[in-house]
């Protein structure tokens, strides 16, 4: 009989730790390297857990899109490179994947989008940063300038992410949390949280300026950038309501910028 040690790591994003268990020391080390400051020692107050079932790498079909659906009370999550299940009643699930950091990353994004939907929060395609104790979001599709703006951040700004921002309601308004979900910057965000001051819709242009955006356009723009994967009408409706609550409380403006550091003079 061979005894295998189980390695446990709590990946704490947005104040919602997920305990990940694996029999592979190599995969545990890979996770520690990937998630850095987002890894915490397992604690007794953990809520969610995932067992990793590692399988040999196989050919991935590129057209295998992500699918998230609820079956008999359990979330079934599939993509070309993983299959996972999660039972929200027990807070436990599993992931079957090859030893790579991208599959578990996909599962974590999906799970957090599901958790946030019931909390009035969301994941959004946006860079974010903290400056003077306040968080700013910069939303836009690929190519809008999220990574560019993150690279241009001055020393007194902490980048929370250059790709996927984490937003949760707080007692007074909303907070942004750092995430390890990196884009082209290829660097995990600062593990910080801060009250949200504004969301800017990124547009590259000939000069740096901020323009007002009417509430309807703000809601449409934020909704376009939301990350939500589940085919679930109730949760989709909740996300819609959350975004409309958000735009009613957080200033949403258009940030037209040229790709140089002076744009940060507007972000205070």
């Amino acid at each position, binding site marked *: 009989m061979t005894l295998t040690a189980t390695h446990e790591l709590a990946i704490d994003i947005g104040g919602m730790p997920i305990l990940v268990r694996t029999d592979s020391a190599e995969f545990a080390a890979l996770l520690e390297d990937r998630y850095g400051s987002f890894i915490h020692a397992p604690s007794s107050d953990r809520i969610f857990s995932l067992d990793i079932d590692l399988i040999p790498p196989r050919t991935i079909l590129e057209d295998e899109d992500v699918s998230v659906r609820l079956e008999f009370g359990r979330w079934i999550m599939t993509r070309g490179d993983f299959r996972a299940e999660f039972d929200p009643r027990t807070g436990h699930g599993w992931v079957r994947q090859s030893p790579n950091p991208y599959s578990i990353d996909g599962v974590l994004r999906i799970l957090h989008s599901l958790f946030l939907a019931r909390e009035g929060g969301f994941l959004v395609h946006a860079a974010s940063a903290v400056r003077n104790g306040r968080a700013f979001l910069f939303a836009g599709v690929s190519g809008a300038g999220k990574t560019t703006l993150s690279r241009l951040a001055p020393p007194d700004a902490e980048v929370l992410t250059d790709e996927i921002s984490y937003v949760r309601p707080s007692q007074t308004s909303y907070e942004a949390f750092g995430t390890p979900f990196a884009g082209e910057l290829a660097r995990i965000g600062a593990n910080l949280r801060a009250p949200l001051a504004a969301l800017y819709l990124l547009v590259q242009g000939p000069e740096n300026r901020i323009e007002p955006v009417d*509430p309807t356009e703000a809601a449409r723009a934020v909704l376009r950038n939301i990350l939500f994967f589940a085919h679930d009408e*109730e949760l989709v409706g909740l996300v819609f309501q959350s975004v409309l609550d958000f*735009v009613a409380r957080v200033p949403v403006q258009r940030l037209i910028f040229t790709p140089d550091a002076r744009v940060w003079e507007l972000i205070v």
Partner: protein
Amino acid sequence: MTTYVARSKQVAARMLGGEMMIMSPRDTTLFNLNDVGSVIWESADGKTPLDDIVARLCAEFDVAPEVARQDAETFIHELTEHGIMRVSDQPITAESARQEPT
């Protein structure tokens, strides 16, 4: 034949900046309703016949009945396509809405 229309219970709808914004949870299509659309939306309770809704549009917006009916039918058809509204030749009750296949 009398026609009845009803808002789907599954639809997320909210007033925002003076406009009604609604989304189909089925395909996440967003709609902003203009004044005419808002009146139809508010009137689509499953009990009010379409003829009465058209009469209300004529009274509120000073349009000819045939124009109001055409606008209403176009609007209702589009929202029905997205699962946002239902149309029936019988009054639509909460019970009948539950029995309707999705």
